[in-house]
């Protein structure tokens, strides 16, 4: 009977999870659920923002739940883990295709805590890092009832463990992701961007790379051939993740201020569509135009993460606009208005030809009929070769399967590109 009652209470709890604690939380949150009101509103807002930022950076949700007593919610002693699991699943927490995430549940009455992870990535990361090690980051604060510091340190530790886990997890990953040959970044900036790029790359099994060079002419390429340099580097440095070496690379050539976004591999090409690459470029170009390199690369990496996440969910960032015209949908007035353009042009052309035919008196400016043809003398006939110029144009082949203006144009080498000036 007691068991049945417990199940009933749990179902009630799950049916209206937020309503159970509504009175304890006046701030609408998605990561920090402070139902025990341990934090001030300002602290809650600050920690919520930090948790959201780190979650997005790591591609792994970081959550905190505080309650007065888990026993009040139908759980038996020692079943806090069960409550944590249930909440995680029913509240649909987590990030990405596998809903990766970690939740820290704190029950004040017994001063109990529970750390629960979900998803392969999160499970592996915490297993490698050690749950106890993680707990040591916040327990001293909790023991001193410094809830804000404890939760803050928990979030910071999560960030560290997920980043570290990503850096050691993939055996196929290249050791670096940000190649700053033009030395645009400080060491700190470089390390931070490298960590971010590594995190995103390993999270989606798709390399996110940055390469800066002073002048592509030093490598034997002209400014318009930056795409060739990018393809060459990508192949020779064996970049990319997974069996198809998926990856995206942003290359900057500082001499001509050229950039090229190169994607390789089926997943990367599908994720970074032609439209998507333009959107990606719009993220970093404003920064590059004012020489804010760090911000530009940061925006490139974070937007790449967003595009990869959309692609992982089956909806890559793309534009399927077919021009707005579909068969049978155009009104008669619209088609007539459009048809009037060739109509008027034809009328002007025909009537203009008629009018020109009404006047044929024109002043002569040549006199070829009066040349004594046999007496023409050609005294000098020189044709001197001076030099040869060569122009190479990349041939794009459509990857097919997409219609209406969307999709990715992939060349015969398996690469797709988007280039321009910054």
């Amino acid at each position, binding site marked *: 009977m007691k068991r049945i009652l417990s199940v009933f209470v749990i179902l009630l709890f799950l049916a209206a999870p937020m309503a159970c604690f509504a009175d304890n939380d006046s701030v609408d949150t998605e990561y920090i659920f402070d139902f025990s009101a341990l934090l001030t509103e300002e602290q809650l807002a600050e920690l919520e923002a930090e948790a959201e930022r780190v979650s997005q950076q790591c591609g792994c949700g970081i959550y905190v739940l505080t309650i007065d007593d888990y026993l009040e919610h139908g759980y038996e002693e020692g079943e806090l883990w069960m409550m944590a699991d249930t909440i995680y699943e029913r509240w649909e927490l987590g990030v990405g295709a596998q809903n990766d995430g970690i939740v820290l549940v704190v029950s004040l009455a017994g001063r109990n805590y529970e750390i629960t992870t979900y998803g392969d990535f999160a499970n592996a990361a915490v297993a490698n890092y050690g749950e106890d090690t993680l707990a040591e980051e916040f327990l001293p604060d909790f023991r001193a009832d410094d809830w804000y510091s404890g939760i803050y340190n928990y979030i910071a530790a999560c960030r560290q463990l997920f980043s570290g886990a990503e850096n050691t997890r993939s055996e196929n990953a290249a050791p670096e992701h940000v190649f700053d040959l033009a030395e645009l970044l400080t060491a700190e900036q470089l390390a931070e961007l490298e960590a971010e790029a590594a995190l995103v790359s390993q999270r989606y099994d798709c390399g996110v790379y940055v390469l800066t060079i002073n002048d592509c002419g030093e490598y034997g390429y002209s400014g318009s051939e930056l795409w060739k340099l990018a393809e060459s580097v990508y192949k020779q440095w064996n970049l990319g993740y997974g069996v198809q070496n998926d990856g995206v690379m942003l290359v900057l050539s500082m001499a001509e201020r050229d950039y090229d976004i190169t994607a390789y591999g089926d997943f990367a090409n599908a994720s970074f569509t032609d439209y998507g690459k333009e959107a990606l470029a719009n993220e970093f170009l404003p920064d590059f135009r004012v020489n804010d390199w760090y911000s530009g690369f940061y925006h490139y990496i974070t937007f790449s993460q967003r595009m990869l996440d959309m692609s992982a969910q089956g909806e890559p960032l793309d534009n399927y606009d077919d021009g707005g015209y579909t068969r049978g949908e155009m009104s008669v007035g619209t088609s007539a208005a459009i048809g*009037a353009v060739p109509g008027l042009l034809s009328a002007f052309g025909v009537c203009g030809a008629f009018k020109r035919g009404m006047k044929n008196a024109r002043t002569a400016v040549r*006199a070829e009929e009066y040349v004594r043809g046999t007496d023409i003398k050609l005294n000098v006939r020189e*044709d001197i070769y001076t030099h040869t110029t060569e122009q190479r*144009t990349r*041939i794009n082949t459509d990857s097919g399967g997409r219609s209406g203006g969307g999709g990715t144009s992939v060349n015969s080498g398996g690469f797709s590109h988007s280039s321009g000036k910054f």
Partner: protein
Amino acid sequence: MPNQVTNYKCPSCTGPLHFVGESGKLECDYCGSTYTVEEIEKLYGEKAEQAAQAFESAQAAPPSASGEWDTSDIGSEWGADGAKMRAYSCPSCSAELICDETTAATSCPYCGNPTIVPGQFKGVLKPDYVLPFKLKKEQAVEALKKHYQGKRLLPNAFTNENHIQEIKGVYVPFWLYDGEADADISYEATEVSSYSTSRERITKTKHFNVRRAGTVPFEKIPADASSKMPDNYMDAIEPYDYGELKPFSLAYLPGFLADKYDVSAEECAARADLRAANTAADIMRSTVGSYSSCVERSRSIHLRRGKVHYALMPVWTLSTQWRGQNFLFTINGQTGKLAGELPVDKGKYWRWFAGVAVGVTAVAAVLIKFLL
């Protein structure tokens, strides 16, 4: 009926003679006798022989090396023939016309003014050459009618037969310029070839510096010497077949008016210069091979001006009024080539415009509606 009466005296019956283009002979309207031009010239003096000698000498003369046109030997004095010439002037458009003593001008061939008045024959050079009319008036009328055909914007009333009856034959004075053009022109040319690999399209462009220099001789570039005759009308009915050019003789004039030149050879020379220079450049360019592109970088053209000849060319003219506007048509009296400006019926213009616009719009709208 023609406006001018031909009355060149027949050696047999003293009846009037007139020149027939088809037979190339002078025919008597009364006894039917026919004479070659040479026979008549023999009867009417030795001037034709002198003109022939002038023609031969002109043909053999090399171009002058000076920078000015050689007008020293241009034309000649009329001598005794001057007494057989008459002059007329038009008080409306100031045209000055001459004809032989047997021809009467009754209206101006340019403006159609019927009150043309006799003037004094003086201060006019005798032409070196004359190109006889070959096209009869009836053929000129047919050429004009043919010109009307297919002109969808022509007012219906304009094709009225009465207008066509106003056609007149006029010998128009021309200066004929001989000379040479020394051209030296440089070009920048390219040869473009391209091929594709599996990943790239490679375009190779070979660059060349090209130079052509040479001499282009010109013979008898025409420029009309009448201020009343629009230059573009005369240019448009070229060319003439100079093979039929004859030393001037009064025998070719009966039945036709001759316009009196009022623009000097020096004043007309710029037109000949321009045509010679442009043509020399064209000929140099035509000797450049089949490059993919050829852009002229510099040119130097020096004209070596030669002799200038004075000739009368046959032109049929039609001047008519339409809604207060004067329309002139000219027809090459030798080849029948026609030049002129026809009036535009604005009503027809806009009806055609609306018809084409509506028709094409309807077709395009249907295609857009159902195919896109």
